């Protein structure tokens, strides 16, 4: 049996009178790249924030690696957080720290290791994310958009997590950088046997990297393999995968 790494059952999120999620179910299996798709305002980020424990849901159960996080205290959550890495849409690098210090911060927080080893390991992660070594001493404001995404990825990998959450990893990148980033994600996924959950709008990224896709429609989620979800009868899903942009993409790829 394939063990679900992330499991969401009956999630309900409500802001005032606005119901964002109503009984949303989702499961992410080991070693897969799971894409979360949905229109603007359908609560993709809210879902991610709920899973990360940044926000408490009104109802529902969320399990990460079999541990239920919805009922956890802050201290218990802290120990879970060492097991996954996250990148945020804008990078969310700490602007007053260099890239090297950004990558080291989770290590300092969770592991007691000698500074020399920490330097070397942080450099390893920075290179693994495809950054040149001289980027380590730069501040986030000196980095380009693509480098910020890579630095954020290096920070997410700092503790060698088995599970990675990526929020719009390729947004704001030019198509070539985005494609390179897709390849990087695939390479890391294969080499480190990561389980990746990513929110994305980028059809190219979805088709290149994702094994299964969850689409948020009507406040719940339709989950299926990539091959099957494109034929789902829901009109939004049809429009998404077979709309103008999707067709342009298909032509580009000579499909």
């Amino acid at each position: 049996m394939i063990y679900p790494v992330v499991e969401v059952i009956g999630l309900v999120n409500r802001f005032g009178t606005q119901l964002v999620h109503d009984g949303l179910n989702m499961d992410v299996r080991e070693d897969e790249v799971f894409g979360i798709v949905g229109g603007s305002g359908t609560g993709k980020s809210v879902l991610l924030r709920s899973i990360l424990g940044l926000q408490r849901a009104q109802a529902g159960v969320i399990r990460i690696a079999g541990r239920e996080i919805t009922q956890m205290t802050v201290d218990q959550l802290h120990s879970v957080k060492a097991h996954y890495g996250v990148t945020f849409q804008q990078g969310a690098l700490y602007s007053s720290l260099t890239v090297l210090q950004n990558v080291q911060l989770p290590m300092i927080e969770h592991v007691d290791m000698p500074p020399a080893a920490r330097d070397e390991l942080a450099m390893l992660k920075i290179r693994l994310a495809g950054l040149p070594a001289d980027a380590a001493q730069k501040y986030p404001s000196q980095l380009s958009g693509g480098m910020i995404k890579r630095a954020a990825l290096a920070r997410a990998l700092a503790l060698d997590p088995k599970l990675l959450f990526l929020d719009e990893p390729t947004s704001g990148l030019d198509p070539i950088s985005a494609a390179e980033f897709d390849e990087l994600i695939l390479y890391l996924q294969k080499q480190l046997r990561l389980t990746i959950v990513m929110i994305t709008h980028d059809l190219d990224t979805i088709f290149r990297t994702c094994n299964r896709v969850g689409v948020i429609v009507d406040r719940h989620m339709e989950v299926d393999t990539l091959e099957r979800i494109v034929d789902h009868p829901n009109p939004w899903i049809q429009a998404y995968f077979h709309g103008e942009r999707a067709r342009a993409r298909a032509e580009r790829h000579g499909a």
Partner: protein
Amino acid sequence: MVRAQRQAAGNGLLEARRTDQGLELDLTGQWRTLAFTQIDAALAGLDLKGARRVEISTERLEALDLSGAWRLREFIKRTRAAGAEVSFRGTPPDQLRLVDETLKRECSPSVVASQAAWEEEAAIRSLEFVGRHAVVYGRDVARDLSFLGRVSVTALSALTSLKRLRPISIARHVYDTGVTAIPIVALIAFLISVIVAYMSAQQLRSFGAEIFVVDLVTIGVLRELAVLLTSIIVAGRSGSAFAAELGSMKLNEEVDALYATGVNPFEALVLPRVLGLVIALPLLTIIADLVGLTGGALLCRYLLDMPLTQYVNRVNEAISPTTFWVGLMKAPVFAILIAMAGCYRGMQVRDSSRELGRLTTVAVVQAIFLVIFADALFAVLFMELDV
């Protein structure tokens, strides 16, 4: 044949056996980042003396992540450097190859090396430091003046039309910096007049001159204390708010967006704040004057048993027609100093949130310094003018 001898097992992470050739290592358990300290200790605690061959087995290893692999690689490197032969029973773990691959991708001087070079040049650097700062300070002065100039020019050109003065924005700043500050300003004015009255009453009582408490409170509050303390409070409240607000707008590229839309940020952001505070601070000063005098009256009534009518008469005798205005006319000047310091520092914020904090602090400290410095100049000026 094999003289097996177990060494102390390292935290359940490895088992070592001595053979006549050297050492056999059996890696076990979870070699994860979170256990880095234990891995480090286990490998460092191995006795390699006289070992010519080290054979590593990973069959019983449950997990090996990059950090663990890196530490193992370091161990292998050091063992080989010591002249021993290292081999794996079976294939070496994939993670080692990944670390090799990643580190090989590009060879550049390590971070530590550049640090040493940095320290070597310390003497030259300190000289450079002095020079660099002299130039920076020179540029700062020029920049201060140009900020002042730009605000003045913007103000003059904006005076030509009501729309460009942005009355709604000004009203918002009058509310934020003035109306919401009334409670704290009133409380401080009341307390300060009580302190002055109380202290002076104690001293003057020994001369039988308690009536002069009224003079002290009245002149002190109207001429100096009300406006000065109000300005200091406003510098702390609004000077910091201006700097933080504009600073985070800079970080968000909102200021650039204004430029790009063809809106002059000085006109849209700085001028309304300066004008708002120029309106709000004198009004706050008047409130502080009123509350201060009331506080003095209450204290005279209950501490010195002075009837209110006598207090009012004495106030009338103590003040000259200029006393109130001398205090009040300082308020707009202080307002300009506070608002300019806050906005200027806010507009200087670049790159990082740490800059935002630093410049907000600078804004408040400078605003308070400028207010007190200007107050000293006013004191000299008024003495020369004999008002």
